[in-house]
């Protein structure tokens, strides 16, 4: 594995969480493990280890049933999409128009949402589990070819998946007449080349067709109707598919026994930022709270250096921010949505009281502004404006008009009430998710989200940063200049005008 982890060490036991030197950032705990069960083996990516640990058993269980019955199982288990939107996979597969073939599966391994670190681990540490998930999905939904799109910058993940595909082809798990059945499937490894927006499913399809990775106009809202080459196409996230082998091995009841009725199973969560033990954890879905994740001894273990929590981003860089008031919310879409944000991509970024809030917001806004594909004006222009204005404020050159301007620009991207958290300190009540938007995809709104959250929850920090100056018209100087700061500013202003 990649060297360089400070936390590395052979099976170092830290409270109830175990780390493995070859799985940087991952902590195993005393919890159900649906997708990370093999992470404890150094050779978890090999076909030998996979076969020795129930590998391809879920595929065999699926192939023993008629395809529609497997589809029914996935529906009954309510396997929620783990890529951001949380849409149930079984329902999505059912959106393909009946009788239209061929249909394709495109696996979204483009993981690049700020804060998100899980799909790469699943690809590097257990590539066969993902392949098995792809096989089950294609069998169940009648998909005749699978394209596994891996983010371009993930060299090791690409190597691990390539090796796993080669081994699985050789062993008869992929290709013609899999395990002697009439189920035949090719899985094609495809690489990206560095563009965040390509993670959006229609942009992913454009990219896979060899084009610039720009999202398609909607409707159709789902590529399940019209996708790759104009054919019905299912796009699923890596983690979503990685759930399927366990589901097939253990059955729907065992799956729904974990987590809650609306959010069954587990999910991978990355907790990063100012915590004692930043890490990736497989946690129980639906009931685990943000307080557990940030302060729980078996998770991130609390704030670093005894600092206090200032704010956290609950679901990847696109999610509106939360503060202390929201810590007891569970990882459940509806609850988090009502509170003004989203569970998103399983990424919690934590800021302590030393954080410079406008500067932190700028790192995210700059990301989305930079990643705009340029197809819609409010995102292309608005994102850049937001970034420029924020840069000015962070550098200490902002004026009070800039704060209004941020909101105005935001309103052109997302008109109306924008979701935000409640705050007892500020006497704010929550505005629930989602927002209205004038753009094709969520990149535009995501450039505004950190600005809006930061400005709503920490306006005082922006105001403290504004340039302190009084404008004095050049012709109105009637008194001799004094040495106070106002006139100093005025004098230097005049100097700038003349220079």
């Amino acid at each position: 594995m990649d060297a360089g982890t400070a936390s590395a060490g052979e099976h170092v036991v830290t409270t109830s969480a175990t780390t493995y030197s070859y799985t940087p950032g991952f902590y195993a705990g005393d919890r159900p493990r649906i997708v990370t069960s093999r992470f404890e083996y150094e050779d978890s990516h090999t076909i030998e280890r996979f076969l020795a640990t129930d590998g391809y058993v879920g595929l065999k269980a699926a192939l023993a049933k008629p395809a529609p019955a497997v589809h029914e199982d996935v529906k009954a288990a309510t396997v929620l999409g783990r890529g951001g939107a949380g849409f149930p996979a079984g329902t999505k597969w059912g959106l393909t128009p009946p009788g239209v073939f061929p249909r394709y599966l495109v696996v979204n391994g483009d993981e690049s949402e700020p804060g998100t670190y899980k799909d790469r681990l699943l690809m590097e540490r257990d590539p066969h589990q993902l392949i098995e998930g792809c096989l089950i999905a294609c069998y169940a939904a009648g998909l005749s070819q699978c394209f596994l799109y891996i983010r371009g910058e993930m060299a090791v993940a690409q190597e691990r998946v390539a090796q796993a595909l080669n081994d699985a082809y050789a062993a008869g798990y992929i290709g013609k007449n899999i395990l002697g059945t009439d189920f035949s499937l090719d899985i094609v490894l495809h690489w990206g080349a560095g563009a965040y927006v390509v993670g959006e499913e229609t942009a992913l399809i454009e990219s896979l067709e060899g084009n610039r990775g720009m999202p398609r106009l909607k409707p159709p809202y789902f590529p399940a109707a019209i996708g790759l080459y104009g054919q019905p196409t299912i796009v699923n996230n890596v983690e979503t598919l990685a759930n399927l082998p366990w589901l097939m091995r253990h059955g729907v009841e065992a799956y729904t026994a974990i987590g809650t009725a609306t959010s069954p199973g587990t999910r991978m969560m990355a907790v990063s930022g100012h915590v004692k033990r930043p890490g990736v954890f497989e946690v129980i879905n639906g009931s685990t709270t943000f307080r557990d994740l940030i302060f729980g001894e078996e998770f991130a273990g609390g704030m670093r250096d005894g600092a206090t929590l200032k704010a956290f981003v609950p679901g990847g860089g696109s999610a509106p921010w939360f503060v202390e008031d929201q810590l007891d919310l569970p990882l459940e879409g509806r609850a988090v949505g009502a509170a003004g944000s989203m569970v998103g991509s399983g990424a919690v970024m934590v800021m302590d009281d030393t954080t410079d809030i406008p500067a932190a917001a700028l790192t995210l806004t700059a990301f989305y502004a930079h990643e705009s594909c340029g197809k819609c004006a409010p995102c292309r222009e608005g994102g850049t404006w937001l970034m420029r204005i924020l840069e000015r404020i962070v550098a200490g050159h902002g004026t009070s008009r800039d704060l209004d301007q941020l909101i105005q620009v935001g309103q052109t991207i997302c008109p109306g009430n924008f979701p935000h958290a409640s705050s007892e300190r500020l006497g704010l009540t929550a505005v629930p998710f989602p927002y209205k938007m004038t753009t094709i995809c969520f990149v535009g709104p995501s450039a505004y989200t950190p600005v809006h959250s930061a400005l709503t929850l920490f306006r005082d920090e922006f105001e403290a940063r504004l340039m302190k100056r009084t404008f004095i018209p050049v012709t109105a100087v009637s008194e001799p200049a004094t040495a106070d700061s106002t006139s100093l500013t005025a004098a230097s202003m005049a100097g700038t005008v003349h220079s």
Partner: protein
Amino acid sequence: MARLSEDNVRIALEIIGRYPRAKSATIPLLHLAQQQDGFVTNEAMAHIGELVGTTSAEVLGTATFYEMFKFEPVGKYLVNICGTMSCALLGAEALMHHAEHTLGIKAGSTTPDGLFTLEHAECQAACTEAPTLQVNYRYRFRVTNETFDQLIDDLRNGRLGDEIPAHGTVAKIRQRIPADRGVGAVAPEDVTEPPAWMPAPQAQGSTS
């Protein structure tokens, strides 16, 4: 330094053969070209256009959308320091300043010896290991000034040759579909029937 070599054309044709439409191979072939020459040349783009049946302008149009493709030579080692939120919270900016100092160049430029190019990068999906960087897309985690300098020293002295190939090569392992196992790609218009393992449409009823 030009069109794809004979060996690479063979790989290119193998890749093209996996897709129902040849144009889908554009990005993989651009990677192949970059692996061959260290960056994507105009001649390679024209050649890719011929191979996938589009114009070189269209290949250029696609290529310029993606950050990984370079159109002029870059350093043998591309050092990408992440500056997105989780890394920024844990000192990415200071690390970048240190890197600029150590390499003696500003972010976005290449050392005079052609060995290193330094770039600002965005979230690398390793946020719990902040601050992070990649050298030719291979990770280094929880980077300190000391480990950064050590890394540069190791690269200068060729001590990481096995782990970190020169810029252009991303994955060192390629997918290979054995001829006797592959199903083969079929153009969508040539498929009308449901796949063999699916029940016939009428028996399928309302699965949706």
